[in-house]
Structure formats: structure tokens, C-alpha cells
């Protein structure tokens, strides 16, 4: 399938806050109750439609646990958007936001759009961080803010899509140079005239091997 743009996203934040669950809910519309610690990076992709344009989100779900962090950091580079996640039932995950933010800003483009996410909003009775605190943190650091639940899917679509809208807005305002790879944005294969399309990784029948266009 063709797309106008591809945006690279990273999902970062402490272990156990629900990063992988947010991704799974967004791409597969399901919830995983067991915590399968991520080591390294897991990937997801999904098309969204912004302003009538097809945009492919390529999502890098990184490991939150400290011992994996030094390695995953190196993959922040070239992200157009970041979801910075904390768990509203665990204050320490909120307290660590500053360090995550520093890391993100240091290892990626200054234009990167960051969405702060207070996840597990379904666990209201166990809430440890007030919504206003999240809002204040976001305001102070120039982030977008939402509370989500990867379990009930509440605001999950919105979190990913609003981030894309903000990136798209920045592109239209000329704040993002879409030709600079470091910005985490790519122009889709059909849109670009000067950029050659790389070899496709799609299975094809041997009859098709003469054609140069991928099946995706």
C-alpha cells in the first residue's frame, strides 16, 4: 500500500508502564495482560489518515528496563515522534520522566514531537499521579498530554494519531525538513520523484521479478 509519508515513532518510559501494550492495542486492537519484558526493540506499523493523506507510522517500542536502556537509546535517532509513557498508579514512573526526556532530547532531533502519556487510566482507584500533574509537566516541557488505557483502548488511537497530526502540522508549516532523514520522516514511494525506490522485500511470484515496483 502506498503512503504519502512515513513517520518514525519511538515509545519510551519506565519498565511496566504499558508501552508494548499501547502498541499492541494500536496495531492489533487487543490487550496483553502478562508483562513480557521487552529486550531491545519491538516494531509495529500502521497506516493512519491525516487530512486525507495516508501516513504510515513505523513504531519502535523500546525496552524500559535500566539494563537494556543504554542499548535502546541509540535507536532514538531519527524519530519524528515519541510517546513518553508513565503509569498513573506508580509515582516513581512519573518522577523518572525528566531523565527520559533528557535522554530523548539528547539522542534525537530537536523537532521531535513528544506526546506525554499517563497510562492505565482504567485503574482510577489506584491512581497515584493526578491528571493535573501530568498536564503541568507537559506544559512546562512543551509536550502534548493524554491519559490512556491500553486495557480499555481509551485514547490509544488518539494518542498515536494526535502525535501524527502535530508532526503533519509541523511539516506544513515548514518546520520539518522532510528531505533530512534525521527528522524521522520519509516521503512515500509514490510521492517521491527523485528518490529511487529500494528493492522490495515482498514475496512475489517468479513471474513478477521483472517489475520494479513492490507489492506493498
Amino acid at each position, binding site marked *: 500500500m502506498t503512503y504519502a509519508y512515513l513517520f518514525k515513532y519511538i515509545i519510551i518510559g519506565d519498565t511496566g508502564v504499558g508501552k508494548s501494550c499501547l502498541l499492541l492495542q494500536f496495531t492489533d486492537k487487543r490487550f496483553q495482560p502478562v508483562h513480557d519484558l521487552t529486550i531491545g526493540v*519491538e516494531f509495529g*506499523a500502521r497506516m493512519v489518515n491525516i487530512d486525507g493523506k*495516508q501516513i504510515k507510522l513505523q513504531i519502535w517500542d523500546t525496552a524500559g528496563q535500566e539494563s537494556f536502556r543504554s542499548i535502546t537509546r541509540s535507536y532514538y535517532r531519527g524519530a519524528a515522534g515519541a510517546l513518553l509513557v508513565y503509569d498513573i498508579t506508580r509515582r516513581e514512573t512519573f518522577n523518572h520522566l525528566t531523565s527520559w526526556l533528557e535522554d530523548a532530547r539528547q539522542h534525537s532531533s530537536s523537532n521531535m514531537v513528544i506526546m506525554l502519556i499517563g497510562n492505565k487510566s482504567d485503574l482510577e482507584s489506584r491512581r497515584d499521579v493526578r491528571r493535573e500533574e501530568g498536564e503541568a509537566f507537559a506544559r512546562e516541557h512543551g509536550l502534548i498530554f493524554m491519559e490512556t488505557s491500553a486495557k480499555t483502548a481509551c485514547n490509544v488511537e488518539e494518542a498515536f494519531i494526535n502525535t501524527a497530526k502535530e508532526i503533519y502540522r509541523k511539516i506544513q508549516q515548514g518546520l520539518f525538513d522532510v528531505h533530512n532523514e534525521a527528522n524521522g520522516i520519509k516521503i512515500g514511494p509514490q510521492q517521491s520523484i527523485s528518490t529511487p525506490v*529500494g528493492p522490495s522485500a515482498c514475496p512475489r511470484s517468479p513471474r513478477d521479478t521483472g517489475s520494479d515496483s513492490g507489492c506493498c
Partner: protein
Amino acid sequence: MVPALFFPWCSSLRAHQRAGRCGDGRHGPKSALRAVREMGSSGLAACALEGPGWLQRHLLSGEFDQLRNFTVFESNFVQVTRFGEVANKVTMGVAASSPALELPDLLLLAGPTKENGCLQLLGLFPLQFVQLYIHDESRQQLKVKFCTGRAFYLQLQGPAETRDLEFGKWVRLLYHLHFQAGQGAVPFTQEWGDEDEETGGDQEDREWDWRDQLQDREARLDPQTSELWGL
């Protein structure tokens, strides 16, 4: 680009495959086509005969800037349960994050998307947190075990003519990796009892299906179930 020689244990794999193809007297596309037919409708299998593998091509497709210069040693597998039942297709590869490294340091896993079966990168894992074992040499099965306790089994796929050779490359690689990691030089699971006894971890050696594979399985095989994976 990293020269192919960089991975001495895999440098000649593609060359051997090509030689095998020409050596059977039926040149070029014809025998490739036959090999594909023999593999059933598996599109993923076709690539093993031509140039870079699917994973390498996927990385070269331009969507993964940071990974595009990796030289990947890769093979197509099917995920099997401990008892050998077949679940789904997985392409597994190893790569080095820097040309200065003598051995690969990353494990890459990819699989077909639900929507159209195109290959999609699923995960990238530092090899220091993953152990690879030869699970069943006769069935050409490897065991992949994460430091978190997740484990799964993969059985090599591919044309019979080249599969032994290809599995041999994995065996050599595993010896190198185990030697480097100081895990003892023998990367087998079976003859050496359960490796969990060695590590003595209290982590359950859970059989781990890639992202809840049992649920995923139907979904993967039926492209209609999700309109979301628009690759």
C-alpha cells in the same frame, strides 16, 4: 557497506546457493521456479535463491535508515512447538551494529504481515540478552531463548539441496557465539540436558509464542482479519 567477508562463517552462503542452482543442469529461473513450487506457495522461500535475503532487502527498502547498512545473515524458519507442531513463518537473522565487530551482536526477527504477507521486521534484540541453541539437529531446529525466560523453537526452511549447508552455517555461528559468551563451547540443548539447570535461574523456561502466537496464528494466516497492517 560491510564487506561480506566480515562474517567469515557466512560469507559463501549465497554463492553456494547459486552454485547449487546452476550445477543441477537446469539453469536460472526455471529451477528457481521449481524450487519455489516445491516449497508450496511460500513466497518467503523464494528469496533464498536470489541475492540478499528478504530481511536484508526489507532493511534496504529505505524505511529503516539506521539499519540499512547492516549485513544480515538470515534464514527462513517456521516456528514449531516443543513437540514439533508448526505455527508460523519467521525470518531470523543476525547482524553486527558496527563493522568493527568480529561477531554479530544483534538478532533480528521478521515475519509476514497479516494483511498481505509482506515481510515485516518484528524485533531487534541485543544478542547479549539472547541465547541460541541447536535444539534438534536432525530436524534442523534451533531454540531461541531470551534472558527474560521466553523461549521458542524454529525449524529451518528452504530447498533440500541447500538446507544442510545453511543449517551448518548456523551451527558454526552458534559455536562462535557460545564460545564468545563463555557459555561453554557446545550450543546444544538436548545432549547436554536442559540448559536451564546450568544457568540455575528461577525464571520459568516458558514456551513463548511470538506475541501470543496461538491467537496470532489464525490472524496471520487470514489476511482479511485486520485492515490495519497496511504495509
